[in-house]
């Protein structure tokens, strides 16, 4: 069964650098992420002639107990 991934998520997964930066941000800030805090991280895309730096934020969507 195909996993639930949003359009933004798919865009991230298409880009190796973005996906790696996100993964690293989650790993390096796992305590903050697990508390639902927003964590900023940078993605440098070099598709155009000069690298473009973007700042994105990620947080855990959390769990509501069933």
């Amino acid at each position, binding site marked *: *069964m*195909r*996993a*639930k*991934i*949003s*359009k*933004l*998520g798919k*865009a*991230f*997964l*298409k*880009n*190796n650098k*973005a*996906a*790696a930066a*996100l*993964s690293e941000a*989650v*790993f390096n800030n796992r305590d903050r*992420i*697990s508390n639902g805090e*927003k964590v900023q991280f940078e*993605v440098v*895309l070099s*598709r155009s002639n000069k690298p*473009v730096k*973007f700042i*994105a*934020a*990620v*947080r*855990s*969507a*959390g*769990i*509501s*107990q*069933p």
Partner: protein
Amino acid sequence: MNIAIGAFLITLLFIPAISFRLALNNHRQLKELLGALSITDTIWMFILVPICTHLVLLPILFTLGMTVKFDLMLNIIYSNRDFHIDNRTMGWDVISFMGYVLFAFAAAFVVSAWIVKNKRLSEKIVALLGAGNEWYELFDGKYASMNFDMILLNVVTGSKESTLIYTGYLENYYFQTKSTELNYIVLTQVTRRDLRKQALTEQPLGEGGKTTAYSNEPGIPIDLPGDVIVIPAKEILNINITYLQLEVDNEMIEELEG
């Protein structure tokens, strides 16, 4: 021959069950879990659907002054020798019967599609069919407190040599055939690291005693080549699931998509 025609006509009457099954294809969980059903299985499983459909539609048609000639069909099914066949009359009767079957099919499909789109009713159907599945609920984020963009998994797997952590984004997951048991998961953008960075051995313990301990820190992540990594469920010891919600500018999405 007549038995075949009779069976065909009965199937036509049961056809709303198939339209219900088709509508269930719009439901991710039910589509997967009921995918193995044959047409016969479908008809028997959803036998109440055609009954309810005809129960609703026939009184409406009768109220509107229209009739469906079931006596004609009954005579065909029973191969009644006394039944006089007039092609001209029967032609229209058959056409109107087929029209009714098509109408019942469409009506059942529309109602079923609406039921499937309704979250509360579709959950009732899932519960009624016993198709509840903990893996689907976890990976579809049923218990996530807000919307999410993707799921990051840390999968601990055991092998003879070592215990490894695979970190990657969930792309797909598969159940065993005709079962709700997880068969394997498919991750993308995967890194792998050892569960323990290193073993700390030969610590002195009293008089010449030695002990072995393991570092609490995991090993260094190694990027794995390949687009996706398939991990069989039987290798999995546990899974850490993080539902990630991202915030980025629209221009970044365009840049990412290229």
